[in-house]
């Protein structure tokens, strides 16, 4: 159940200042390479944020489609770092309990790395399919086959040598983050 009460308080003053600064010129949308796939353009999403329409924002496709290319932020005349804002909104969405496919993808990605010390595609796909449903593999068949033919997919799973030490280090970092509530080592 997605809970949006008190969500706006989750945004830091810097983010709030940026949201207020936007004067809706639309340059961000003009440069966005994936705008046509989005339900709300980057500009429209920021408008919904200004009006406090959190249900539109957190349930949108927009925040998950953002490719992080920075075309929007570079041109913004009001200095809004929209790319960073998008990543904050994803964090807020997850903190509110949102569980869509992209969320499951991210979570599986991270847990695979924590487990094995690196990302091996076959292992990752299997882990992902387990939480997302085996139908996600169907969409990967064609490109997966091509990759396999080119030797990009090792049949034997690759694991890190001292996986245990890495796992312990990463786990303790993540626990620290949980405890202090502060992200460690920059935004993901």
């Amino acid at each position: 159940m997605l809970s949006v009460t008190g969500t706006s308080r989750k945004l830091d003053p810097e983010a709030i200042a940026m949201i207020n600064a936007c004067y809706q010129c639309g340059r961000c949308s003009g440069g966005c390479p994936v705008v046509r796939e989005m339900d709300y353009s980057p500009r429209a999403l920021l408008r919904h944020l200004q009006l406090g329409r959190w249900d539109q924002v957190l349930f949108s496709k927009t925040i998950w489609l953002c490719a992080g290319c920075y075309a929007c932020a570079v041109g913004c005349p009001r200095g809004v770092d929209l790319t960073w804002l998008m990543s904050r909104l994803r964090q807020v969405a997850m903190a509110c309990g949102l569980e869509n496919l992209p969320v499951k993808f991210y979570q599986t990605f991270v847990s695979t790395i924590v487990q094995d010390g690196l990302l091996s595609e076959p292992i990752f796909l299997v882990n992902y399919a387990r939480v997302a449903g085996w139908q996600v593999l169907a969409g990967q068949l064609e490109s997966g086959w091509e990759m396999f033919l080119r030797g990009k997919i090792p049949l034997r799973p690759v694991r890190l040598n001292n996986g245990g030490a890495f796992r312990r280090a990463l786990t303790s970092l993540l626990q620290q983050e949980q405890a202090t509530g502060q992200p460690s080592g920059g935004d993901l």
Partner: protein
Amino acid sequence: MGQPRTGVYVCGCQGEISKRIDLHQLAATMAKKKGVALCREHESLCSLQGLQLIEDDLRSGEIDRVVILACSPRRHEETFKAILRKAGISEYLLETSNLREQCAWVHEEAKQAYKKAAILAQMSLARSRWLEPLEPLRFTATRRVLVVGGGIAGLSASLDLAEAGVEVVLVEREAFLGGRAAQLYRYFPRLCPPGCGIDYILQKIRSNSKIELTTLTEVKSLSGGPGNFEVTLLQKPRYVMPDRCTACGNCAPLCPADRKDHFDFGLSQTKAIYLPKGFPHPQSYVIDPDRCLGQECSLCRQACPVQAIDLEESPRERTIKVGSIIVATGWDPFDARLVEQFGYQQYPDVINNMEFERLVSPSGPTGGKLVRLSNGQPVKRIAFIQCVGSRDKNHLPYCSKVCCTVTLKQIKYVREFAPEAQIFVFYMDMRATGEYEEMYRLAQEESQALFIRGIPSRVIEDINSHDLILQAEDTLSGQMVKIGADMVVLATGMTPNQEFRQLGERVGLPLEMGAFASGHLQCFPFESRRAGIYAAGTSQEPMDASSAIKSAAGAAMKALVSLPEEIVIRPTVPVLDKTKCDKCKRCMEECPFGAWGWDDAGYPSPNLLQCRQCGICQGGCPMKVIALKHSTVKQTASMVEAFDPSFLGEREPTILAFLCYNDAYPAVDAACEKGLTYPANLVAIRVPCAGSLNVALVADALAGGADGIIVAGCASDQCHFVRGSDLAKTRLQNMQETLQRMMLEAQRVKWLTLNITDTEGFVRTINDFVAELRRLGPNPFKG
């Protein structure tokens, strides 16, 4: 002069003061003090009767200076000063004590109010002993104005001044007049050709003998102040003698060298010898020395039928004296190369709005035909992008004001030259103010331009056809749109002329907020940071031609005011005692107005005509050798000395406050208006600016036993003298060491920012401070 003979006058203010304070007793006490020749009580000193009393006493010779114990000096100081002048005495031999707004009206307890009144009177008497009979200072003025810049604002200001009977020296850097307006095809509101307006002004200027006009001339250096500036002008060589040249044009076809014509922003070329476009003045050819091949070539000289060419001409310098200066150096278009995404100067068909003006002008690169620069084909689809460089945190933070209306005007051009063309305008807001709104309506209704509210992120070019593609979100419908265009016009904003900016910094005329003087400020319109130098037109801020002409009239008016026959300034100027000066230069560095120079012996010397009499120099001088007349360190020290820190009794803490005259003192005066009262523990001394207070006086006050000290001034960005508050704050902070050595708590000295409306804040601070001082206990130096 002998011993001072002071007349002390105690005013009851029709009962307003006498109701709270026993004035009989006060008068009796004052009459016995040393140096007091007489002491009178009156119910209303500001009445005709009261004033006559003072005047008679002055004329009788019994007294030679006046101390008035009455209402706030802000109320009647000028009234009393006038009486002194009437009696033939220097108005600076007057001292006023504020027994009403800062005593009777704000202290409820009568005994305490009396004690405070007595202390105030004592302090005023002490100061009065150090007053000097100052007279206004007079200087002869040069009744001539220098106008820098021969564009529409400079031309207009020159004419306005000349018609007011003032001599004008007008200098223009280029070989032609008319500036940027001359580069336009049409200008609004009437969409007439600028040539008409400029020609009209030029005819009048040529027939006005009061205007001396030279082109190819720049300002090399300037010094001095209002009424007596000295300016060195540099006239660059033309290499053609204008009184011989008939502009026959025989020379140019033979010239082997060419140059980019910057009148057309480099879109066209001329030979190295050329007749400037616009309004060449004089009507003569000019040689560009950077491109000319020189003596070895000389083809032009051989071709010239009247031997007008002089390849050996050298630059000429001359120095003139003027009374004031108007800077009308104009603007440059924002460099759109900085917004790389739009492809300016990468794609040939992306141009800025000034280049567009040249494109449609008959004297321009295409002879006035609206064709593509890439292939010469007629323009069928044209797109304008607004706000390029303006309103942008990454470039110009301000709005350049004119670009929206310029685009609306240029849409009309498109209809005139390409009636069938499709026109698109990508905008954020359309700012067409006043009657220009009609241009907006016409652009939509008649010219049928399509306005898309959304700025493209970038412009893309097809390498072969040079066709341009723009993609943007039409925010009004929420849909993405993609437009193909033959030409993209970037509505670029205005920046101040770059070359003059460098000179500006050399002469202490820095740019603020992107211009020499922001024109819309209410307090100092047209004034730059340097007294006597005014800004007109777009060197002030972005504006259209009609506003530039109006602003020129305003600047001319202000420049006129700096030109009396004689300059009379108030004598409250800083004076340096060279015997103790160690030439540390702090006064020169801290002065916000650059008013300190050197004298022949290497001592700092104030330029009195540039000085704004704030006293920041006095406040900072570590040797205390600078005296700001009528607010000298000695005079203030005498008040500090006369202050008895135990005036309310042994147990009561007392606070000495130094209040700046601009905001802090009025804020405290306003307490009575707001019905507020505060403890009588506070005694105030007014100073011209918080920065004029030398912190040695704070140390003196503490050594004398004052329990607490307050220094109050305007907010940092509102100080009338730019830095006074900031410097006062810093100096107080630097006092920490001194306080430690004196074994005094740092909390005893407070800086207070007081806005003129901050009375409530002030009252709260005083109450808190008194409580704090009670907790801290008395100053160990007391008693």
